[in-house]
Structures are given as C-alpha cells and as structure tokens.
C-alpha cells in the first residue's frame, strides 16, 4: 500500500454534519409494501380492526408515558417505540400465541401486544409494586414470561444468544414452538450476533433473528456504523433471509407468517431485516442533530397507524365513528393506567432481597 499523507487518513465513515463532511446520511430505504388486501392475506375484518386498536394502544401508551416522564413521575431511561408499531403488531398476529418473543430495551410495544396490560406496563415505568416486573425492571425490562414474552434487555446484543437458547429448548422438547428475537441495527455490530447466527444455522434451530433497522444506533446512522446491507449478513451463514417494509403492518404480517411457517416446518433459522423508523429521540435526552426534520417528516407521512386507518375506512371495514369509539376507549384505558400507576404503592422494602435466588431464605453476604 502506498503511504498516505498523514492528514488524509480517516477511519469511521463521516456524515451527520455539514455537506463538506459527507452530508447527513439517510436512515433506511424502505422496500415496497405488499399490494395484497387483508382478505387475500387471510385476515378477517375483525383482525384488521384489532391490529389497528393494538397499534393505537402502543402509540397512546407511549405518548402518555412520555408526558408522565416529563412531569417527573419516574426516572431512568425511556426509549420510545413510536413509529415502529407495525413491526410488533404484524409479528404478533403472524405468530402463534405460544411462540417466543425476546427483544431489546425498546420493549413497551412488544409487551403491550403480548399480554402486558396498560396498567401493569405503566406501573412498571413508575417503579411500582403492581408493575409487570414488580417495579424492579423499569422501562427496559418489561416481561410477561407466562405468555412467552421473555422480556426486554439492556445490553445491546446481549439477548441474541439467549434467543438461540429458547429455540434450542423448543427443538429439544419438540414442542412445535418457534423463537423470535428482535434487536436494533446497532446490535448487528456485536460479536454475539455472529456467534449466534453460526450456532443457529449449524444446529438448525427454530429461530427468527430480526433486525429492526430504524436507521440509527443512538446518534449514528446505520450506514455509518455497519458495512453493506444488513440483510446480507445471512449469506455468510447460508441462512434464509428477507427484507420487510416495517412501516406497513400487512407487509410485516404477510412475510413473518410465511417465515414462521417455514421455521416451524423445517426447523431452520431465518435472518430478517425489517426497515422502520423511530420518530422520537433515542431516549429522553437526545437533541437529534444527526438527522434532518425533512427525513423525520417523510416517515411520519407514511405513518403505519394512519396508513391502516385509511385502509380500514376505504375498504369499509369500520366506519369513522367505529374507529373513534375504539380510539376513545383506548385513550380512557391509558388514562386509567396512569392513575393506576400513580396510585399504586412502591414495592415493600423487603422486595429488595426477593427474586435473587430460588430459595426462600438465601445467603446474602454482608
């Protein structure tokens, strides 16, 4: 290699600043959405209406949670899923109820569509004893293990190998269940993913590894932190793969259903990239200088909830008044959840020592 002038050398790709420095990198490019209508996807009118209600609930829950955070009702991190609701919703409708789901810390939407009630979710955010994780986990650690939602995890990439373990146990027990694992584009850069993909393919584990590529890992555009197309990682492992438009719930549903069926039948893993967009900052303190207002607006103009609403009205699945009633009902449910969380007690002091070990009186070093 010819010697370079020392000042010409650079390493990381540039580009969230001025045009001379490479300009602002766009988050993601969406693949086309499915053209199929709900009937040909096998979805009933009621199911479509339920999808709408589910996405609307996730949205309003988080908007209210954000308000409560800003009021100082709870602390810690608050990573909002707003913009990505079609991913959780389309997936949950595509899976069977006992299939496993495990995700990262951006987990409220996943919890809400896997049995965590708005009340127990909001109470968890508030750190109350009535929360889904007894107030011990907070925003990042929603979980409902009974319904196979194994929770949200805070170490980027940390839960990916765990997903392979869930799948391993399913194959071992021949129980017909499959495991799905969701993580961000940032997690693609962790060694844990690569070790896990190899293991999963080698051992033919019934698992789906899904990147929710929302364009950014904190303040770093996907194109600045990872090479090539994320989905192409699958090729190196000889793994089946797909790219999905995550701003459209039908597209997520259609493809995830096909994939889930394939995994169940053949016990072979898939690697899937669902492209989506997060509307809010990474957590609550993020000036968002790494992206343009125009880019955000571009995605908000194809909002998955608005899109489904327009479809429902156009197809005459529900009337404007029907939807309004659903929305009002959800709004009230969320407000009730806030009151419930606010009025719930904090955990008893003795809870500090509970859930560390299985024994009733375990040893604690003092």
């Amino acid at each position, binding site marked *: 290699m010819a010697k370079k002038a*020392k*000042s010409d*050398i*650079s*390493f*990381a790709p*540039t*580009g*969230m*600043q001025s045009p001379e420095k490479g300009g602002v990198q766009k988050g993601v490019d969406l693949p086309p959405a499915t053209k199929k209508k709900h009937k040909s996807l096998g979805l009933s009118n009621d199911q479509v209406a339920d999808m709408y209600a589910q996405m609307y609930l996730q949205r309003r829950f988080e908007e209210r949670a954000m308000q409560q955070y800003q009021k100082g009702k*709870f*602390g*810690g*991190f608050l990573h909002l899923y707003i913009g990505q609701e079609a991913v959780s919703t389309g997936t949950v409708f595509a899976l069977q109820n006992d299939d496993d789901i495990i995700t990262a810390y951006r987990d409220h939407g996943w919890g809400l569509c896997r049995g965590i009630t708005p009340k127990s979710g909001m109470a968890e955010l508030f*750190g*109350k*004893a009535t929360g889904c*994780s007894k*107030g*011990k*986990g*907070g925003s*990042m*650690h929603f979980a409902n293990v009974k319904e196979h939602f194994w929770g949200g*995890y*805070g*170490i*980027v*990439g*940390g839960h990916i190998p765990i997903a392979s373990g869930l799948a391993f146990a399913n194959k071992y027990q021949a129980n017909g269940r499959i495991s799905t694992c969701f993580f961000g584009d*940032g*997690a693609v*850069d*962790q*060694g*844990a993913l690569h070790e896990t993909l190899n293991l999963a393919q080698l051992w033919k584990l019934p698992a789906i590894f899904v990147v929710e590529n929302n364009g950014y*890992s*904190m*303040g*770093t555009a996907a194109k*600045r*932190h*990872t090479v090539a197309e994320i989905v192409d990682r699958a090729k190196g492992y000889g793994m089946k793969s797909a790219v999905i438009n995550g701003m459209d719930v039908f597209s997520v549903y259609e493809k995830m259903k096909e994939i889930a069926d394939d995994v169940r039948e053949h016990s072979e893993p898939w690697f899937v990239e669902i492209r989506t967009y997060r509307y809010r900052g990474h957590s609550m303190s993020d000036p968002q*200088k*790494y992206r343009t207002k125009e880019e955000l607006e571009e995605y908000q103009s194809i909002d998955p909830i608005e899109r489904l609403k327009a479809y429902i009205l156009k197809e005459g699945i529900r009337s404007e008044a029907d939807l309004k009633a659903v929305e009002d009902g959800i709004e009230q449910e969320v407000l009730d959840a806030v009151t419930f969380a606010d009025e719930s007690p*904090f*955990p008893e*002091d003795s*809870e*500090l*020592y509970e859930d*560390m070990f299985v024994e009733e009186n375990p040893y*604690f*070093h*003092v």
Partner: protein
Amino acid sequence: MAVLQFREAIKHAIDEEMSRDERVFVMGEEVAEYNGAYKVTEGLLDKYGYKRVIDTPISELGFAGLGVGAAMNGLRPIVEFMTFNFAVLAADQIINHATKVKYMTGGQADCPVVFRGPNASAGQLGATHSVAYDSMYAQFPGLKVIYVSEPNDAKGLMKSAIRDDNPVLFMESEQMYGLKGEVSDEQDFIIPIGKGKIKREGSDVTLVAHGKMYHIAVKAAEELAKEGIECEIIDPRTVKPLDVELILNSVKKTNRCIVVDEAHPFAGFAAEVGFLIQREAFDYLDAPVLRVTLPDVNAPFSKSLFDLWLPGPKQIIDAVKQVTYK
C-alpha cells in the same frame, strides 16, 4: 485555578495530551460526531479531525482489542466505554490480553492503552447498568485502576494515565460529569498514579472513600461535625496501586476506620483495605474496621428500592457512631 466541570477537566487532559503526542487518539461509541454520549469529548473531533477522534460501532470486544493491538504497535489509544457496564463485553481483551501480553512475551510488547468511562450506578438505570467494576478489575495483576471523585484529580490523573506505559482503567461517573471544581492551570499538571489525598482532616475516625462515594462521605462528615465528631476523609483516587501508607498513617492517628465502597461487599475494595489495616495497624485500632457497601443484591429499578440499595450518608453516620461508641 480555573473552575471546570468534571467532564471538562477530563477533556482538557485528553486535549493537552493529544496536542503533545501525535500517537494519542480517542475512540468509542458516539465520541466524535455526537460529541460524546456525556459530552466528555466535545469539540475534539473539530480540533483533531477524523483520524484521531473515531466513532466505533457497538462492538466493545472488537474496539477494545483494537486498542490493545494499536497500543502494542506504537500508538497510545484512549478507548471510551459508554459505561464500564458495557466493558464487560470487552473483558476478554482487558483481562486476558491487555494485562498479560507484556508478561507472556517476556517483556517484548508493551500495552499503553487507557480504557475510560463512567463506572457504577447512575440513578434508576436497572440491574445491568449499575455495577461498580473497580474492585473486580483491581483483582487482576497488570492493570492500574483509577476511580476519581473531583475535577482536579480527574485532570491530573487522566494525564498520568495517558502517559503511563501500562494498561490503565480510568473510571468516572455520569452523575459527577456536571460537578464543578477548581482545577490547577499549572502547565502540565500531573497527579501521580497511586497517590491518595487527605481531603478532610479530623481526629476521631478515618473515612476511606473514592469515586462517587467520596461525596457521600463528605455529606456524612458534615453531619457528624455538627455533633462534634471529626472525620478524616482519605480519597485514595487510585484503587490500584493503593496508597496504603496514607491510609495507615491516618488510622494510626484516629484509631478507627470506615471504608465506604460502591461495590458489593464480597472480596471488594473495602474488604482489602480492612485486611491491610488489621495486618499493618492492628495495635492502633480502638474498634473493628467497618465498611459501608452496596448490599449483595442487584440494582433495582424502582426509586424506593434504589434509594434503599445505594449507600447514603445515613449508613456512614451509623457506622461511625458504632465505632466511636456514641
């Protein structure tokens, strides 16, 4: 003397060392274009450019090891972990490689790398984001471990860390970054690694406290002073090498000691200091050495449980009263 925030003090140290030595560079998640998750590296990209201030992917194992290799091959990397909780993923490179390469090669390769970032808890961030790692790393031969409490110490010790030819862990706290303090503007202000400091003089009891816990100890000492109990506070600043002399001299004067440590109790810093005191100053003790640490449980999220979990002035005051028989 200039009044600087903790984060600015660290940045000034890095800045001075970068302009002094072309081999020094900074890398880590969000350190360059975002100006640092906690703004410690703010402005360094503009000043030194993309070659020397480098954003990494979320690949702790990879970039920590890259730092080790670059250090072996003539550079002086400063590797930022967004917090030391994430450095666990890089533990193989820190523990198995950085600390051992010189020894295993019979001294042929040096590893002058600095790993830095916030340590321990920072409010309600939950179980995986709240662990104090200084004691754990101090277990391993071949590492120097610094966990400072004030801006002046941060600056002087960061400069030493960067100049040190060994791997050095430099620990900070999210909750201290905004803390202001007077910082020496002496040209090339250096605090040697391994030197603690008496930060408050007193004759009744010695409090050994470092990092975030130093500030809790100060609060306790102020309360106790109102009751006529005078604490001497020793901030070791460096966990390893430990300034044992300074601690022993103080204990020989006060005859009592409480060690305040943000780690869990088993085999931690507090246990080590307690052991050394009984070995070296047994005859001077008027009471057993006590410790105030985290309990032997994970960090809870809930505010009520978190406040119970994190050591506060009250526990120190109780311990002091116990050893002073008040």
